């Protein structure tokens, strides 16, 4: 077998075959096909779990590089921050894997570090969003006027305070959700669905080969 076959064509064939097996399992009731599909689906969980380690490896590579660079430029604060990141990464992983994820130590680490950081980092986007509503969103064209008016009314209808005094807000909110939003998002859903299927067709036919990585053979 040539190198091209081993390095490129067999993987692409594997994609096609697994994709087809799983697709046909949806339409055909056949015992052997069902059990093969079941096994493949479970394999997927294990393989994806292995691939979740990439994020850790990437971080270690990136930050060792950064530490070297910042050492040479004498930026000690940045070095310290990178070292801390690596220490957290390795420390947490070690505790979680060796002492067990349901151990009290890991639970303590999680609730006092991960929980506040994770929830606040996500929630702090409120401030950018808030700032955008004030500084960037302007009713400058018919489209944006429609958008701004609908969002003002929806914000109000999400608040019990306004709904208590203006009950019509609730009727408006229900109407817009069940009529306008449902119908227009249905058009988008159909489009996105067709797009997704076609993306699948292109992938199985080896026309989208980005996942193979490096361009050279």
């Amino acid at each position, binding site marked *: 077998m040539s190198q091209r076959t081993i390095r490129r064509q067999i993987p692409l064939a594997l994609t096609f075959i697994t994709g087809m097996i799983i697709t046909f399992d949806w339409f055909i009731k*056949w015992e052997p096909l069902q059990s093969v599909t079941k096994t493949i689906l479970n394999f997927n969980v294990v393989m994806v779990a292995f691939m979740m380690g990439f994020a850790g490896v990437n971080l270690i590579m990136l930050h060792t590089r950064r530490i070297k660079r910042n050492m040479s430029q004498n930026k000690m604060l940045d070095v310290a921050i990178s070292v801390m990141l690596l220490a957290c990464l390795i420390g947490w992983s070690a505790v979680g894997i060796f002492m067990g994820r349901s151990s009290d130590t890991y639970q303590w680490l999680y609730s006092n570090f991960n929980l506040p950081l994770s929830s606040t980092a996500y929630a702090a986007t409120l401030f950018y969003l808030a700032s*955008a509503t004030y500084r960037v969103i302007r009713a400058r064209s018919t489209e944006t006027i429609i958008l701004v008016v609908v969002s003002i009314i929806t914000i109000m209808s999400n608040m019990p305070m306004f709904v208590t005094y203006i009950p019509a807000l609730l009727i408006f909110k229900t109407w817009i959700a069940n009529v306008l939003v449902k119908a227009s998002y249905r058009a988008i859903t159909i489009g996105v669905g067709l797009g997704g299927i076609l993306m699948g067709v292109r992938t199985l036919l080896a*026309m989208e080969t980005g996942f193979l990585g490096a361009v050279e053979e």
Partner: protein
Amino acid sequence: MELVAGKMLDLVVLAGIWAVTLFLIYSKREIWIRRLPALDFIEEAVGRAAEMGRPVVCQGFGSGSSGMQSSIAPMIMAGLAVLGHAARICARHGTQIVATMRSESVVPVADEVLRTAFRLEGKLDEYLANREEMLPWLPTQAAMVALAHRIRPAAHIIIGAFWHESVQIAETYGALGAVQIGGTGRLYQIPFFAAVCDMNLIGEEIYAVGAYINQTPQMLSSIATADYFKLAFIVFILLGVIMATLGMVDPLVSLFSW
């Protein structure tokens, strides 16, 4: 071995999609695609930047660890097509263009796109001399915000795949007064782009723009196939509504439950 009940029409439609796509690709027939107004808008925005002597920023290809190797690759390709288009206009007018990548795996592809664009305008030397500046790899949101404050761009093109970081980035550039053109295939971020951008591309429109610029047969065939099926569904919906109004929709419903 038996066929699963209630999934027959699904199978027929799926087979139909495969057949039409394959036919369109291998018959090599020419496919007409309409020019979207967003393209004119991009040209206008870049022209305005040239007049003001301020740079254009084109960014956001991939996010974090996901880049060319994940399912968002088509969105990135569409964004890169627009980057190539904008880069040609910039090269022609002598405007500075900065393309920032979030995902390292996109950098070499973007490099190729910019190289081609500048070569076609006969200014490859200019690109090679300023490559570091024009194609920085900025993996964090903070770095992108810092870039915005440093170079204060006049136009900001943000087409690709985005997660919640889009809020911060588009807010910063918008508040600095840049004209923004936004578009993404990720449904949850579209409303935000619709609100803050001067021109936005909704969902599939980014693929259509990409296909219009690059004219790749696979992409054009995909868009055409989707169009034929949408047209067929419009016909079925109208037919269904007429039959429902007359109170005899049952045969059609049972066809769709086949």
